Structures are given as structure tokens and as C-alpha cells.
């Protein structure tokens, strides 16, 4: 059990690092997916540890949501790329106060 959780934490940390350090929108996006799946892993592990199916159901919901999020997110990235021919998030700094 604790191995699963350790793996999950490791994956989450890697994802977080990716989100904070990458500039390309696509890579940030992939890192977010990694974090989502780390969370899924933790959910499934807990479900198995406590012996009921609720955690697994939750993981399925997260997968479904992630699919929707991918669709929207990729759409946004494509739109941004068309407008600016770049996917670097640092170019999208118009909201600076």
C-alpha cells in the first residue's frame, strides 16, 4: 500500500515540477495529466486498502473529466498557436497588473 502511495506522490511531484518549470503549453499540459493520474493512483490504492469501490468509481470519474479537459485544453492551445504561432506560455503575459 505505502509503495503505491509513494509512487503516486513521486508522480505528482514530477508533474508539479513539470508545470512549474516548462514553458511550452503542451508540456505543461502533459505534466497536468501526470498529476491527475498520480491522484488516480492514490484513489485506487486507498480504495483497495479500505476494501470498497468508491475510490475506484471516483478514479473513473476523474478519467472521464480528464478526457473532457484534454479536449478543451488542446483546443485552447491550438487556438493560441494559430493566433500567435507560439505555444510558449510566457508570451501570454497580457494580464500583468
Amino acid at each position, binding site marked *: 500500500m505505502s509503495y503505491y502511495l509513494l509512487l503516486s506522490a513521486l508522480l505528482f511531484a514530477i508533474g*508539479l515540477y513539470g508545470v*512549474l518549470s516548462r*514553458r511550452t503549453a503542451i508540456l505543461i499540459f502533459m505534466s497536468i495529466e501526470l498529476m491527475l493520474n498520480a491522484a488516480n493512483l492514490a484513489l485506487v490504492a486507498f480504495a483497495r486498502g479500505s476494501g470498497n469501490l468508491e475510490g475506484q468509481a471516483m478514479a473513473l470519474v476523474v478519467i472521464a473529466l480528464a478526457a473532457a479537459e484534454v479536449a478543451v485544453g488542446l483546443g485552447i492551445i491550438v487556438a493560441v498557436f494559430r493566433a500567435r504561432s507560439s505555444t510558449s*506560455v*510566457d508570451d*501570454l503575459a*497580457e494580464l*500583468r*497588473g
Partner: protein
Amino acid sequence: MLLLLIILLPLAGFVYLGLAGKHLREPLPGIIASALTGASFLLVVALSLGGGAAWEIKDWLPGIPFSLVLDPLSSYMGLVVTGIGFLIHVYAIGYMHGDEGFSRFFAYLNLFIAMMMTLVLAGSYPVMFIGWEGVGLASFLLIGFWYTEKKNADSARKAFIVNRIGDLGFLLGMALLYSLFGTLSIAELREALEASHVLPLSLGLAGFLLFVGAVGKSAQVPLMVWLPDAMAGPTPVSALIHAATMVTAGVYLIARSSFLYVNLQDVSYFIAVIGILTAAYGALSALGQWDIKKIVAYSTISQLGYMFMAVGVGAYWIALFHVMTHAFYKALLFLASGSVIHALGGEQDVRKMGGLKKYLPRTHLHGLAGALSLAGFPLLAGFWSKDAIITATLNYPFGGTGFYIAGLSVAFLTAIYAMRWYALVFLGEYKGDAHPHEAPPVMTIPNDILALGAVFAGFLALPKPFWNLIEPYLAPALAHVEVHHMSLGLEWGLITLSAVVALAGLYLGYLAFTRWALPKWYLTFQTWSENAFYVDLAYNAVIVTPLKELAYIWSLLDGALDTFYVYVAGVSGWLGERLTRVQTGYVRAYGALMVFGLVAMLVWGVLR
């Protein structure tokens, strides 16, 4: 319903001329306004002949109906207001000829008539207060009619502010009456007062407060300072508002409330004292004026003082009799002054007049009739009414010999200054450099009618054993007063005495201002009188300047407070500017902040 039309017709004129008057060609606004006022006059006549009328809205304010009443008192006053008002409207068509604000002027005049009739017809104090404030507004607008000159606008504000002091008294008096009797309808108050045997102690205070209102509106001592300045308005305004009608509203208020004052001996005595003080002050100040209109203005103050003395001693009908005769001869004096000013192209200084008898024969006759009536020349209107007042101080309940002597002395002064006005304007040699021309018929004909009134109106109420039409007519609307009987011989003896006094005053005035070189002490008096005994100066020093200083101090405090808040706002602005630095616009920075926040919350949650 017809009763309401008396007010609505001039009000409609005000609205129409105010909105559309600019597009009308010159005499038309004047004709419309005069016609509407004339129609109001005819309505008052018709309704009075029909025996009066009443009209009300039941639930105007909670517990207070909006009521209009045409009883003998209000029809009498209404006839004076609309009748004299109509003549002055017609006169103004000629006087205001070629003025830029021709239609605006008539709109204001109609507003004044509407408001004055509201005041007169009011069946309860709140309704009267509407008219009271309305005429104040109209007066303000008309004093400041030529508002481009600062002096005129200042005079208008002065009139408004001084009136405000009186209005406060009126309001407080109403509030007190309401708390005592639970009603403000004049008829109900009268019933309540006549039914109750024990009068509430604070009734005297209520009467006094109402009188304060009258003091402000009728320019009595100590609130008389606004009236001479009100002469800044066009002359028809001075004639209509500041001589014939509005300033007598205070007398009307007291007469309307006569059932109240007849029970209040102390307050009545006080009113009479204020009245005679005002009469003396006005007469003394009128003697030294050099402005043709200001002489007449101070004489108005003086005559109003007589009226207040009359209501003070309990002679309510005599006060109203004097209101009527005064309306005739004072309107005539003002309009004659207006004709003179008109003829001399705006000159108002009597030192640059003189000898106008030759150039303005018609106006000379008007001026002569007005001045003699004012002076109390025997058998003219002013003689009968003023003599009635002076005699009333002896046989009416709240009077006294002191009032009689003071009243007679002031009558002597009145004759002198009336003669001075006439002599300086019409007698001697012309000293100005304009080319005087007689006024057009539209101005002289109203004056002819007023002159007839100034000469003959007194015959409506003669002393015994002759007829007296006014007293029995007004009697049902006024409180009943016990009058000491006076023997015919004594009464006619007193009348002869006052006639002699008036004639002596006129003769002395004639000699002093045409023949004699004036003595030195008189010249000193002249300076004091010219400045109206420096009352304005004293008020400025005691009240106006300290208030202005206080206002200045408050403005400094206000400024300090403002500065404080400006700094608070500045600090917030500065902080906000710093905080915007956090909004870098970089997604990764936001992400990092989110993570830090999350970690901080987790740590806090675990450690707690």
C-alpha cells in the same frame, strides 16, 4: 371648484409663460398674464357675491385636509390682491417694455398672484404656509429679476434669508398649535378655542411664534432690513409685492388668527409695541433717503407698523381697512415713482429730479394724490384709515394712551416725509439732464384708477355717525372684541386733531424742503437716517460677520478632513499599486503561488 380656479388660472399663466413665453411677441405675455389675473379678480367678485365658497381634499396629509375657504375676510383680501394685482400687471406692460425678460417677468408675477391667493384662501395653516413660502419664492425671483448685477442678486438672497427666520417661527407655531389641539384647520381651531374655558399655557408661545412669522414677512423690527433692499427689483414688483400685497400677509395672518390673539393680551401688547416701533423707525428712516423708491419703501415699513399696532390693540378690521387703503396709495406712489424713473431713463436719485410737475402733469397728479393720502390729508383714504388706527389705540381693549401719542407723532413725521418726497420730485427746478417724457396710457390709466382709490377708498368706512361698510362685512370672520364706547364729540375732536397734525406736518415739510436752509442738527440726523440708523451695519457686525467667520473656520476644518481622506485614499492607491506587481501575467508564477499557498495550508493544517 371655481374657488380652485382663482389659484389655477394665474398658475397656468405661470406655467405657460414660463415654458412658451420666449416665443411670444412682446405685449402678448403681458396681456395673457393681465387677463388671467383679471379673470381671478372677477371670480373672486362673483364668488363673494354668491356668498362665499369652500373646497377641500380630505386626506391631503394624514389628518390634515387641503382646504380653501372664501369667507368675508379672504374675499376682502382676495379683492385687494387680485384687483391691485391686475392694475399693476397692466402697468407693467408699459414699464417692462423692451426688457429682455419680458415674458419671464409676467410668468413670475402670475406665480406670485397664484401663491398669494393660496395664502389668502387657505382654510388651514399648512395650506397658508404653502402660499407663504410661494410668495417668498416669487419675491426672491422678482427682486433678483435683473440678476446679472451682483447687488440685485444679493438683495434677493437677503430677502429670502431674513424671511427664513420668520418662516421658522411660523413652522414652530404651527407645530405647537397642532400638538395642543390636534388640528391645524383654522375653523376647527377657532371652535376649539371658543369652546374651551381653560386655555393651554403654551398658547401664548404659539401666538408669539406665529407673530415671528408675520414679523419676517411684513418687515417689522427687528427683521425689517430686507425690505429697503428689495427695491432692487423692477418698480411694479415693489408696488405689488413689497407694498400692496405680500408684506401685508403678516397682518392678514394675525387677523386670520384673531380668535387666538384676542385671548392673548401679553402677546397682543407686544405686537402693538413692535408695530409702533416699526412705524417710528420707518418714518425716521424715510426722512433721510435720497432714492425715490427707498423713501417709499421705508414709508411702507412705517405703514406696516401702523397695521401691526392696529392688530395688536385688537382693532383687526381697522388693520385690514388700512391694508386696503395702503394698497391703493402705496401702489400708486410706487407706480408714480416708476413712471418718474421711466421718464428719466432710470434715474432714481431725488437730488437729480425736481420740477417734474411741468414735464409729467399726469404723473404729478398721481404722485400728489398718493403723497397726500399717505400723509393723511383730510378726507383722503389714508386719512380715514390711519385716523381709525390712532383712535383705536384709545378704545380697543389692548391699547393705551402711549400708543396714541406715539401714533400721532409718527403721523406727523409721515406727513413731513410724504411732503419731502413730493417736493423733491415734483416741485422746484429740474436738476437732472435727461429729457422727461410722460408715460404711455397703458401706465397712466392704471394709475388713474389707483388714484381714485387712494382718494375715495376711505369712504367705505367712516366714523360714526356715518356709514361703515367694512366692519360689519368682516365681522363674522374676525374675533369679537369689546370696544369702549367713545362719545361722538371726543371722537370727532380726535379726528380734527389728527387732521391738524397731518396738515401741520405737510406745511412744515413744504417749508423745510423748498424754502428753508436746513439747520446743522438736521443734517446730522439726515446722515443717520440716510443709513437707516446703521441697522444693517450693526447686523453685519453682530450676526453676519461672525457667521461668516464661523463658516470660514468650518471650511478650514472641512479642508483638513478632506486632506485626511485624500491621504487615506493615497495610501490605499499606493498599496494597490504595489500589490499589482504580484500579477506578473506569467502562468508559471501563478502556479508557483498556488503551490506555495497549498503547501502553507497543508502545513498549517497538520501542525494545528
